[in-house]
């Protein structure tokens, strides 16, 4: 099959009565979901094909209907977080120029404050259900996600139908789905990582349970919810799994149905993973590794029970649809273990590139022996068993709560504040806090700085700790001495 839409229709025909998607309050069977999509779709018919349509994604079943309706209409969607600062949303909308935005009722206030002239829909229910579908297919785009760019300008990554399908086929062959799989979705639908949950669910005719955000505040209620909803398959960021194990919630309650536990986005501390293995011993655990520039993931590492000699979990081996090489600075392929090199990925699952940005696209995507290759910027080495092990990013990009953040973007936002002379942003790996060091030219308190940054950055990017210096230390080259500052937070 060459389009996600066709895959969806096949699943609707196969499992009309099965629950497709559920949130805390409601659910749609595949048949009902299709009916809902039709009612949205007739409103989208007036747009020409191949246009971007933004979606303010909420944690509810109608967001899923909106996503599929855009796909069915022959356009591609951009999932967005409507709680992002106004400045950032405006920058994204100016870059993507969507013809319409679909959203939630509560987003009306957000729209009023944005520079957006196009159509905005919340109540999508048309009585006209006889619309025609003309979905995009093959190498045509399916969706676009915006990631953090080091310059502070938004960067849209476009993914095609073929790329996502390549991932779905490879993943479902490697980790076959059981008849009654119930996926417990943790990542917000405006994050790329959620596409795995959504499309694996549709491809395999599973049920997607959207777990309410507030369940991720306290662990006991979260595990109870997993049990109530009989969730047996999850792909979460390690922070969410650690919430349960670190606070010893297992002493009170244990997940009863979980059989497959995938984690992705950051390193899962081995100590916490051991607690999971002890308390939920019958589940299969797999560490995944991916990047926004590839659909799904490209590496996997299946955990066996013996974690004795492992300090950090390996990223493992390439997915069957990916070819991975480690290369040195001269582009020479590294095969021996222990030598650090950069990860290069070749796969039909690669993204199409960065939206309207040939220069950035060509900087990291290129052709080699007629295959497309992506230069990831991630450094890794092989262990003795030939597993890839993550070393670090080449630049100043970090993973925080499973989200990719360019420290440079935070610095760029701070530099825009006239009150800040210069600054430097570092990540305190141990305590998991983004720390800002700055030099001011006027009297400003830490909370005032924080407030000013709120208009410029997403909440999760706002530094957890701000240290004000009269003079930032400089190194011999006259640059801010990052190494010295790093020591102060170690």
């Amino acid at each position: 099959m060459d389009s996600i839409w066709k895959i969806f229709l096949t699943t609707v025909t196969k499992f009309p009565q099965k629950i497709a998607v559920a949130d805390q309050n409601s659910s749609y069977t595949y048949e009902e979901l299709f009916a809902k999509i039709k009612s949205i779709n007739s409103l989208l018919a007036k747009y020409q094909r191949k246009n971007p349509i933004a979606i303010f994604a909420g944690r509810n079943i109608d967001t899923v209907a909106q996503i599929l309706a855009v796909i069915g209409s022959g356009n591609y969607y951009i999932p967005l977080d409507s709680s992002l600062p106004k400045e950032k949303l405006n920058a994204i909308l100016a870059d993507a120029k969507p013809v319409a935005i679909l959203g939630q009722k509560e987003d009306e206030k957000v729209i009023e404050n944005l520079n957006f002239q196009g159509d905005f829909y919340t109540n999508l229910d048309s009585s006209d259900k006889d619309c025609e579908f003309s979905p995009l297919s093959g190498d045509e785009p399916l969706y676009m996600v915006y990631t953090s760019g080091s310059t502070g300008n938004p960067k849209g990554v476009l993914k095609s139908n073929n790329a996502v399908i390549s991932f779905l086929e490879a993943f479902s062959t490697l980790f076959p789905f059981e008849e009654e799989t119930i996926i417990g979705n943790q990542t917000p639908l405006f994050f790329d990582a959620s596409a795995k949950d959504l499309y694996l669910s549709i491809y395999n005719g599973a049920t997607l349970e959207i777990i309410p955000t507030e369940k991720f505040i306290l662990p006991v209620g979260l595990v109870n919810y997993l049990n109530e909803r009989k969730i047996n398959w999850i792909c979460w960021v390690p922070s969410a799994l650690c919430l349960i194990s670190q606070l010893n919630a297992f002493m009170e309650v244990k997940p009863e149905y979980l059989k497959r536990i995938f984690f992705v986005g950051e390193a899962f501390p081995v100590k916490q993973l051991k607690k999971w293995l002890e308390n939920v011993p019958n589940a299969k655990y797999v560490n995944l590794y991916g990047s926004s520039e590839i659909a799904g993931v490209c590496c996997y590492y299946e955990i066996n029970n013996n974690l004795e000699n492992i300090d950090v979990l390996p990223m493992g081996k390439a997915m069957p649809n990916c070819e991975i090489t480690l290369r040195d600075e001269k582009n020479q392929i590294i095969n021996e273990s222990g030598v650090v090199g950069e990860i290069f990925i070749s796969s039909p699952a690669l993204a199409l590139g960065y939206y309207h940005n040939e220069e950035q696209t060509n900087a990291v995507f290129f052709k080699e022996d007629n295959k497309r290759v992506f230069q990831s910027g991630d450094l890794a080495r092989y262990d003795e068993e030939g597993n890839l092990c993550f070393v670090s990013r080449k630049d100043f990009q970090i993973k925080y709560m499973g989200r990719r953040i360019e420290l440079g973007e935070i610095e760029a936002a701070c530099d825009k504040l006239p009150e800040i002379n210069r600054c430097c942003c570092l990540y305190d790996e141990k305590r998991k806090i983004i720390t800002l060091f700055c030099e001011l030219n006027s009297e400003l308190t830490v909370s005032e700085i924080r407030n000013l940054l709120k208009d410029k950055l997403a909440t999760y990017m706002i530094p957890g700790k701000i240290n004000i210096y009269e003079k930032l230390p400089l190194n011999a080259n006259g640059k801010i001495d990052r190494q010295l500052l790093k020591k102060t937070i170690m």
Partner: protein
Amino acid sequence: MEKLMEILMEINPDIDYKTEKNLIDGKILDSFSIVNLVAQISETFDIEISPKYLIPKYFNSVDAMWEMIQAILDEE
């Protein structure tokens, strides 16, 4: 109580803890910030917070957290 306030201010200085009675149910505390909060309370007051306390009732307000700390101290 002052020490507890300090911990909370470090986690999120923008919340008016004195009046807020709905920190969990009102989704005012962030997802995942509780891990940090529990670790700091345990360390500062030298107590072990067992999972039976990890429900909204004990974290919805500063007073509730304070009562929980006192209850745990009494148990020990």
